[in-house]
């Protein structure tokens, strides 16, 4: 299941993309630095509430998708299976190896799962409520060199085109008798080879046209450029950016000073 930008009027939608990016950065760092189950659980509950408040069915489906729940379950099981330290709660002797379930293994598993869910659901909320074009323009206005910004924009512009072309190329192979799903790995590799050539030719042609089109409109001739789009920072945006920066600075300072005890609760 792929989550992408969903147009909407929610409070999260109306925030400036950069303030949301600061929050994502600060929260992601704190999730990895703070080994506290309560913090992780409260954070996760807040994110789920925010995701539900957006009111998007697609986002809700993503929250409870097999991908998210399956990956979370896998992380939990792997952590439990591969953590041998702590008090032994259960031992299952098998022919080749023994399964040992410890209290620390379970705690670590829950912690890692919560971390994963925190990051992925926050990311989902960010992607679902942030127009990628607005984000790139905001970054360029904030000082990211515009050549890099437009690299991302042209990628967003051309990826759907190349996807459509890939489908046509694949159809052209099928209607000339190439059956990828019947000939095993050899046919699959052959199909990839046959797909790459037409797509590379197309990409080269398109990049030549695009380069002429952009250079012909004075792209890259000046160090800076005008941006027609205006970035609005509301009080909430300014508050979020300030809080995020403060949180990041504090976390890093605590880390450096050793005040943040990076260990699991007993």
């Amino acid at each position: 299941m792929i989550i992408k930008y969903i147009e909407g009027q929610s409070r999260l939608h109306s925030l400036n993309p950069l303030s949301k990016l600061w929050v994502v950065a600060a929260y992601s760092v704190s999730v990895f630095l703070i080994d506290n189950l309560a913090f992780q659980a409260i954070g996760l509950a807040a994110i789920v509430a925010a995701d539900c408040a957006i009111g998007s069915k697609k986002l809700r489906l993503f929250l409870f998708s097999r991908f998210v729940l399956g990956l979370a379950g896998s992380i939990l099981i792997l952590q439990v299976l591969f953590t041998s330290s702590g008090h032994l709660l259960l031992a299952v002797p098998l022919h080749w190896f023994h399964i040992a379930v410890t209290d620390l293994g379970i705690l670590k598993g829950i912690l890692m799962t919560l971390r994963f869910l925190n990051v992925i659901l926050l990311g989902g909320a960010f992607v679902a409520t942030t127009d990628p074009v607005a984000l790139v323009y905001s970054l360029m206005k904030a000082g990211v060199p515009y050549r890099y910004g437009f690299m991302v924009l042209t990628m967003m512009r051309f990826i759907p085109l190349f996807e459509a072309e890939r489908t046509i190329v694949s159809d052209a192979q099928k209607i000339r008798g190439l059956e990828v799903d019947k000939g095993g790995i050899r046919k699959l590799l052959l199909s990839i080879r046959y797909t790459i050539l037409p797509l590379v030719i197309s990409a080269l042609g398109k990049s030549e046209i695009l380069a002429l089109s952009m250079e012909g409109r004075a792209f890259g001739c000046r160090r800076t450029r005008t941006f027609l789009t205006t970035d609005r920072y509301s009080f909430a945006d300014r508050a979020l950016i300030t809080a995020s920066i403060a949180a990041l600075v504090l976390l890093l300072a605590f880390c450096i000073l050793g005040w943040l005890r990076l260990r699991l609760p007993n």
Partner: protein
Amino acid sequence: MRAVAVKDILPAERVMPASDPCAAISLRDVSFSFFSRRDFALKNINLDIFRGEFVIITGPSGCGKSTLAAAMAGFMPQGIQGDLQGEITINGRSTRAGDLSSLAVQASLCQQDPEAQICTLRVSDEVAFGPENLELPAREVVSRVKEALLATNSLHLKDRSIFDLSGGEKQKVAIASMLAMQSEIIILDEPTSNLDPESAQEVLSAVEGLREKKITVVVIEHRFDRLLKIADRLIVMEAGRVAMDGNPTEVYERYRESQGCGISRKPAPGHRIKSAKGEDEIIYVRDLQYSYNGHKVLGGISFSARKGELIGIIGPNGSGKTTFLNCLAGLCRPSSGVIRVDGINVTESRVSEMARSIGFVFQNPNHQIFENTVLAEVTFACKNLKISKERSERFARIAMEEHGIIQYAQDSPLMLSYGEKRRLNICATLPHNPGIILLDEPFIGQDISNTERIMEDLVRLKDAGKTLLIVSHDMDRIFRDCDRIVFFQSGSILVDETPSKAIDAIRNLGAYHFLPDIYLLSS
């Protein structure tokens, strides 16, 4: 209007005067070769385009028109790498001297493929792109965006996403984005080649509007009938040289004669092949419905075709023509309905099984070239269908002989010209002897003689008993050579008649853009 006499091919040794000070663009003894090629794409070009002129440039595919357009827009020698000889000046300034940004405000080039030249995702961002790069004040950028969109009659598209635009709308946005640079010269390289007749008319109206703005306009086109009445000059290129240059009407007549196009444009009387018992019915479609992402693309299509029929499928972009062909080939699975092709129930068959009965020529020749040699490409389907090498090569050679590409048998298909690649695509559908050939826009990007050649090939295949369905926007040829015309609109077949009857039916629907030129003009 400056009158320019028709002249013959310029001899190489002819001494040209220095650049005319009134010339917006001046080329003196210009030759150009790409670094990757030995031959010259432009050969000793001497040409002046004067301020305020409206000039059409035409010529066969591969004759150097697009290279000339890039030269006139100032991309040589700085933008395009190659060996440039001679001198190009734009408004009196040599292209060797100024940087690209200073040249960008002198001349703008709008290219053939609107899809590839748009670099942003919103219409207003795209039109503002050039002025923003020039660091103009925001207020000035806003005013230029509005002015440029108004000039191309597309202000209503301002806030639309690029992905939601039709081909014609994209081309109009591309033209507007060049106009926003406020260059004194605008060069349009085949602005209508990828468009349906209705969209092409929209774009040509916008181009005609440029005439009133008193800027210098150069239009490169294969089909330029509509522009002839407003053009000051028509230039014909041939093999990298200026072959004819002068009064549009005179040059046009000479050009058509030289291309052997003095043929009747009247539609064929056509005939529907009838079979009382229906045993020759090779395609049978009933109540075909197809939806994509909840959007109905085909709504209850019923259609049949018999052996040896040549059927032209026309209609606006997005009316379901290509989807219909895809359904026949099994590439799209219909929501409901019956499709039987050559006795096979398509909805229950694999696409690769359909390959024995159907040959499919897609719109872009490069999307269907997979092998390293022309011969291997022609036998590609035979190899997949497990037809013996000896037999497939024998039939491949016959097909290549008939389509005039046998001399390239061991060459890379990528070295062929655009027209030759198209003939290769058709050839590659033949050696395994399918009864039906589906062609999606086979004439796009082809010049007059290539188009005629391809059409002759298709008529020959029809005479050999094959059933051909051609989706095309080339109304003149479709109405002239097809047995039946099928007109699609909004996912339905509105007309399915012989060409002469289809003209009346389409006229009654008010879809005049889908008539051959002579009928369009009279309508």
